[in-house]
């Protein structure tokens, strides 16, 4: 699924990576625990999370995750935006809570679990 399509489905704001919305993800992972993401996430997944701090960006970097959606109206800090820009990541935010955001993407065809 294209990131642009994800943006549309989740009525999301784009914080970083406007120029990469044509990029695609094939699986997603919804999680608030960074160690769980580190334990189970596959490469090149979309990470949906309600957790907002610089370690989310760092964790994504370790896993080569290129796109993150912050849920429940959470927005990234300036530090996080700067970090994400350096790492060529795309950051979105949506008002939907985690469960609903995941459900909407799943229903629209993003069905592969982002877990190894």
């Amino acid at each position: 699924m294209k990131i642009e399509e994800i943006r549309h489905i989740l009525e999301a704001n784009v914080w970083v990576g406007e120029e990469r919305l044509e990029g695609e993800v094939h699986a997603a992972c919804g999680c608030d625990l960074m160690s769980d993401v580190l334990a189970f996430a596959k490469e090149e997944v979309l990470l949906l999370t309600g957790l907002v701090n610089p370690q989310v960006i760092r964790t994504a970097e370790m896993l080569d995750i290129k796109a993150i959606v912050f849920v429940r109206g959470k927005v990234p800090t300036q530090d996080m935006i700067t970090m994400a820009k350096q790492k060529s990541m795309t950051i979105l935010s949506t008002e939907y809570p985690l469960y609903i955001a995941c459900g909407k993407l799943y229903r629209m065809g993003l069905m592969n679990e982002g877990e190894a």
Partner: protein
Amino acid sequence: MKLHYQVDGDNFLVAGEASASLKRTLKQLGIDASIIRKISISMYEAEMNMVIHAYGGVIDVELSADKVAIILKDTGPGIPDIELAMKEGYSTATHEIRELGFGAGMGLPNMKRYSDYLNVYSEVGVGTTVEITVYLT
């Protein structure tokens, strides 16, 4: 090649810098992405533990033709029961740390899962040393 990193104990914002830096170096050297991933995840978990549980420390990395050996040393409180600490879900992390997304008790199990060799020595009141080795072939 030998690399040395200093890890600041109370700066959660920059925690993980050392792991990120090694990751960039390994990428430049053209090491296989799946191997870089194993190294990055193991080292990052260990680096986060140093910051969260042990007020920082030092990391030495030795890169040779066949392997990457990482030694993380801290002078923190130590781990009284390593076998227990290695169990999935065991954590002494505070509520504040949990709110930041850590403290699931998955770090040491993750290091075990992703590294080829893991050794944890610890002495209460003295500190903890974690050795991680990942083979390149």
